């Protein structure tokens, strides 16, 4: 289908990652406009009026977050979270690999708005290409005079640093990210204080997701009213949804918020594979509860998805069809959290371990009748009892799967095998 792209302009402009091509297509005009026509607080106000909400998962209003910075004269930092690792989510990868200048322009405008003199992009360790593309683009931006001292004669100065993690999902949690950026293990910090008050190097810091900052140049160019003309009153604007799983065209799709889930799956992602039907959908990354097919008409905005029983989260939409074993899917997702738990809090460290063990046992046909209630009991003992959201995040899919597909779990126990015939791979010891 034809559409005008704002965030995924790399889809229609080849080589937009290079400075000359980016500028030919209006690149850095929003920066010039920001520096020439706006005072910093006017930009904060513009972003507030646009209603832009954090695209990393929590959906917190960006302009409001920017407003939390204390006005006490201490140096401030902008940190962009590119530690994208939530299963099902792959939008930030496309943005930084293919259109790094868009993010950099957004970072310069945002830094000017919040009064930061240094800005960091924290890429996950696996984003080798992404971090290389960003480093190259940052160099180009310095050469063009968009970074460094006295940018475009405005008196505003900014340096951008590209930093690479080394393989740890937990570093996507903002305080763990800051720990990692300071050269420590990625253990989350106690909050409060929140990063806006005491963040990087103890200074006031704004941590925003890549996609969030990518929206900023477009909002400056087209205005807050343009942004609020899309989506709903509380969830305005554009969102990139990453669709994967059993659909014909997995990929990133830029949609106005409040587009129905059904439209995303059937029209954008090409529908289900031949002869298959939808079993359930994870709408917002692996940390959210599943939605059943009767919720396919849910508009994809933060409030509607919440009301339907899940969360829009990071926009990582994984579609499961009728061939997929729900126990195996749950076991795989919980294993992810087991591997990625930082190990600091006992409920998360031990709970994810035991849940994986029990789910694997049920899938292998060796489960017993008490196992289902044991899983729910472990979940109850973890929920809300961990330092950071990782432990809670491991529960969403599993608990909703047991609720909606209890009979399928029980059939595994009763028949001592997977009724869907999913192949279990034994570990081969060579």
């Amino acid at each position: 289908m034809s559409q005008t792209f704002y965030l995924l302009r790399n889809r229609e402009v080849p080589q937009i990652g290079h400075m000359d091509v980016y500028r030919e297509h209006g690149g850095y005009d929003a920066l010039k406009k920001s520096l020439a026509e706006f005072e910093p607080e006017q930009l904060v106000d513009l972003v507030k009026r646009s209603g832009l909400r954090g695209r990393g998962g929590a959906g917190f209003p960006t302009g409001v977050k920017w407003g939390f910075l204390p006005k006490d004269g201490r140096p401030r930092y902008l940190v962009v979270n590119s530690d994208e690792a939530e299963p099902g989510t792959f939008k930030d990868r496309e943005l930084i690999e293919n259109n790094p200048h868009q993010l950099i322009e957004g970072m310069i405008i945002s830094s000017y708005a919040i009064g930061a003199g240094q800005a960091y992009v924290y890429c996950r360790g696996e984003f080798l290409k992404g971090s290389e593309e960003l480093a190259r683009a940052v160099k180009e931006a310095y050469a063009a005079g968009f970074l460094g001292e006295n940018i475009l004669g405005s008196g505003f100065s900014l340096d951008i640093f590209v930093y690479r993690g080394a393989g740890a999902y937990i570093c996507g949690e903002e305080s763990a990210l800051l720990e990692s950026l300071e050269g420590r293990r990625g253990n989350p910090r106690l909050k409060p204080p929140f990063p806006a008050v005491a963040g990087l190097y103890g200074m006031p810091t704004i941590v925003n997701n890549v996609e969030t900052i990518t929206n900023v140049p477009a909002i400056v160019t087209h205005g807050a009213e343009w942004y609020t003309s899309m989506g709903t009153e509380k969830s305005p604007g554009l969102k990139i949804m990453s669709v994967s799983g059993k659909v014909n065209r997995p990929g990133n799709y830029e949609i106005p918020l409040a587009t129905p889930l059904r439209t995303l799956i059937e029209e954008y992602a090409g529908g289900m594979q031949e002869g298959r039907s939808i079993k359930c959908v994870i709408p917002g990354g692996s940390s959210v509860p599943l939605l059943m097919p009767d919720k396919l008409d849910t508009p994809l905005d933060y409030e509607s998805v919440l009301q339907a029983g899940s969360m829009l989260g990071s926009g990582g939409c994984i579609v499961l069809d009728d061939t997929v074993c729900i126990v195996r899917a749950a076991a795989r997702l919980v294993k992810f959290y087991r591997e990625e738990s930082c190990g600091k809090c006992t409920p998360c460290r031990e709970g994810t371990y035991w849940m994986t063990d029990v789910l694997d046992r049920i899938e292998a046909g060796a489960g017993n009748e008490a196992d289902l209630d044991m899983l729910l009991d472990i979940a109850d003992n973890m929920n809300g009892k961990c330092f950071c959201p990782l432990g809670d995040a491991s529960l969403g899919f599993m608990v909703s799967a047991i609720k909606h597909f209890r009979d399928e779990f029980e059939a595994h126990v009763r028949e001592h095998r997977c009724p869907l015939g999913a192949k279990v791979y034994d570990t081969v010891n060579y």
Partner: protein
Amino acid sequence: MKPEWKEWAQEAKAEFPKANSALLPLLHRIQRAEGWLAPETLSDVAELLNLPVQYVESVASFYSLYFKQPVGKKVVHVCVGLSCMLAGSDELMHRLEEKLGVSQGQTTPDGAYTLLEAECLAACDLAPVAQVNLRYKGPVPPEKADELLKEEVSS
């Protein structure tokens, strides 16, 4: 300690002077040259950055991409996240294990390959996806396991 490490440490500290921010970039750079981080390497890094050895070991052990034992010339990460599982990643891993004669987590005796599991590589549109020396390869359906192993990779 290699002579160039001192220079690299200075460069890392110049770019990231605050807290211990120079540590991760320096570990990355040395591992890229050496292939892995030997215990002696971690002691050298500690000395270069004026940090306790235990601290450097503790940080290096937290992150899965710092290799604390020798790895093969090609490090193959197979994503086994849910979306990749739905596209056949377990069968891909199974075939790679058979072809290489090692289990995941191991290195072939000739030092050519290390086979590792990855927990979601943020590339579910390329499922099943793999990385060879952190370069994305995908989609890699199980029947293309051979081709994945033959892939030329830039360092």
